[in-house]
């Protein structure tokens, strides 16, 4: 059975049809790719599923429960973690604070606990901090724990953002161009990290990416989106050899 099921999702921005008739079905533990030229509607699909926009039409179900109409934080707490294409980090917060805060929905203490620093509150803070440190290790950013995020190199910020998303304990992780602006070495490291979190946390991943080599290497299945419509779906091999894809998208880039 699939973990996330999107049926017939269509979205208009005013008169612009950004996404039309989109379907997706991800099983637990899968890694999926979503490619397409600029403005194809990839990010919009993420925003629709994570509740930032509500689709004009269509259904979205996570573990057979509808997500339509829920607020983004509720969807996130149900197990849908994400990163953002333009990295929405909190500019006055440290790396550790980022990852700690993403535990928000898991906190067991309430306001009274926070006000008076009760024992439960302190225990929870300790647990969250420990967990956060573990995640920072996984993403190789532990040495920046107490630094403000804005001072860090681009690639590190990307990894912090992923660590933060993983702290929400997602069942599915949405990554919007996780390697944008990264150096080749960081790219290789990122492949390793994604493989590691995939096997360690058993998380399903949906990946938007422009670097085809990266997508082809990681993903089991890939969708190609052009003008809001999926024109091809299949294994990396099939996508690589699909004439429509080559014409619409790959033609201008070299497929390695």
């Amino acid at each position, binding site marked *: 059975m699939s973990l996330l099921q999107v049926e017939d999702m269509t979205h208009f921005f005013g008169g612009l049809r950004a996404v039309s008739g989109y379907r997706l079905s991800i099983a637990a533990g899968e890694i999926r790719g979503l490619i397409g030229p600029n403005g194809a509607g990839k990010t919009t699909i993420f925003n629709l599923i994570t509740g930032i926009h509500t689709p004009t039409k269509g259904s979205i179900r996570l573990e057979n429960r509808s997500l339509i109409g829920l607020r983004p934080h509720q969807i996130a707490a149900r197990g849908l973690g994400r990163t953002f294409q333009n990295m929405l980090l909190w500019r006055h917060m440290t790396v550790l604070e980022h990852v700690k805060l993403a535990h928000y929905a898991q906190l067991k203490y309430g306001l009274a606990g926070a006000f008076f620093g009760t024992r439960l509150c302190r225990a929870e803070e300790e647990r969250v901090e420990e967990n956060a440190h573990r995640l920072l290790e996984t993403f190789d950013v532990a040495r920046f724990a107490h630094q403000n995020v804005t001072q860090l190199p681009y690639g590190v910020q990307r990894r912090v953002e992923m660590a933060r998303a993983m702290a*929400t304990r997602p069942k599915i992780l949405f990554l919007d161009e996780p390697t944008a602006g990264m150096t080749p070495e960081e790219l290789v490291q990122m492949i390793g990290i994604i493989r590691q979190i995939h096997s360690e946390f058993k998380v399903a991943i949906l990946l938007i990416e422009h670097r085809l080599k990266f997508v082809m290497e990681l993903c089991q299945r890939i969708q190609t989106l052009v003008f809001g419509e999926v024109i091809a779906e299949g294994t990396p091999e099939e996508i690589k050899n699909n004439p429509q894809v080559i014409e619409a998208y790959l033609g201008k880039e070299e497929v390695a």
Partner: protein
Amino acid sequence: MGGSDLNQPMLKPVLIKRLRDFFAPVPALAWLAGILCAVLIEYQWGDALAVALYLPKVPPLFGATLVLKQPLLFPWAMLFVCLVYGVPIVLIGRLTAGPANRAAAALGRMPVWVSVLLHLLLLYIALHIWTETSDYRLQVAKLIMIAVMLTLSLNVINGYMGEFSCSHPGFMALGAYMASVFSLLLFKADRVFGAPVLPEAWGPYFFPLALAAGGMAAALGALVVAIPSFRTRGDYLAIISLAFMFIVKSAIENIDAIGGPRGLGGQPHWSTLPAVFAGMSLCIWIINNFVRSTLGKALNAVRDNETAAEAMTVNTRRTKMVAFLFGAFWAGVAGGFYAHEVRHVTPGGFGIQNLAEVLAMVYFGGLNSVVGSIVGAVSISFLSEILKPLLLYKWIVIPLILILVMIFRPTGLIAFRDFDPRRIVGPRR
């Protein structure tokens, strides 16, 4: 190129560094010992020294009030301050650093609250002795502590959460009136409300309840502002909260039962020094606990990027509501203290000037910082006292200073600083 300044280290930074190194090993406990000595010296020999230095009396606020009133006396006042405060604090502080560090380390092995309470007790004793000298000083000290509460509670909203709220005087008014009505109705034979319901002697024990009632009234008012402001996206809060402030003012003016524009007076004098000090300490403690907890850090996330906060499971709407009501609550409590200190409140007293003052305290002291709020409240209060002879022109000078701060330090003097009581009471080195 570029290496030239390596050979000639600038004089000033070196001096500052030397000084900092010299005082680095001094723990809070040693400073407190120094302060205690200073206030004792002043208590004992202050009058005699004042006479010797041609001062009419002990300068009540470190000579600040003399700057404009009697500028010729100001140098003498500075000398007085140096002799009575500067020298003893520096000397005793530095000399007792060793034993104080050992004591602090020993205290560190106990639960942190033991050490914190001890420090607070010492601070209170110093404050108590210091305020014995004059009633003026006593009232200024209390009003400053009330201002600290007010500033910190506004910092929660404007600094930690990054919204711009203007309704703090309104919340303060609600708190002041609610607490006054509570105490007048229950414990005071009063023109407006008649004979007391409960024996007057019980009164002071119910003061916390009166304050809580004031805080609740303010929080309720905050709910009225928050519902329309936080439902919609965009910056409506500034406008709605400003309107709210004026509505509260004119609403009170139109209720004759609580005195209308003439105000409400005759509150029992319950805002004693220990009461205000305890209230302020509690306020700082609770707010600091909150903003340092992960739950409270959600405010920062909402400020820095709301979309990301939502995507990381933070219930942003609830977070904003809670922070706003929480801030308002403490403004109401501060209002309650204020009413029971000045013992006559008028709706006109909670207006735009009040707003300007508290905003100045928050933005001058520093956003997102407990220490900043304390520094802001104390320094703007002092400035206000210095500029009192200027009357209305005060309101040209304070905004000017604020503009300068905004230009040179846009987030305030001590912004984005973590306030860790454990570190403050702990030993140095």
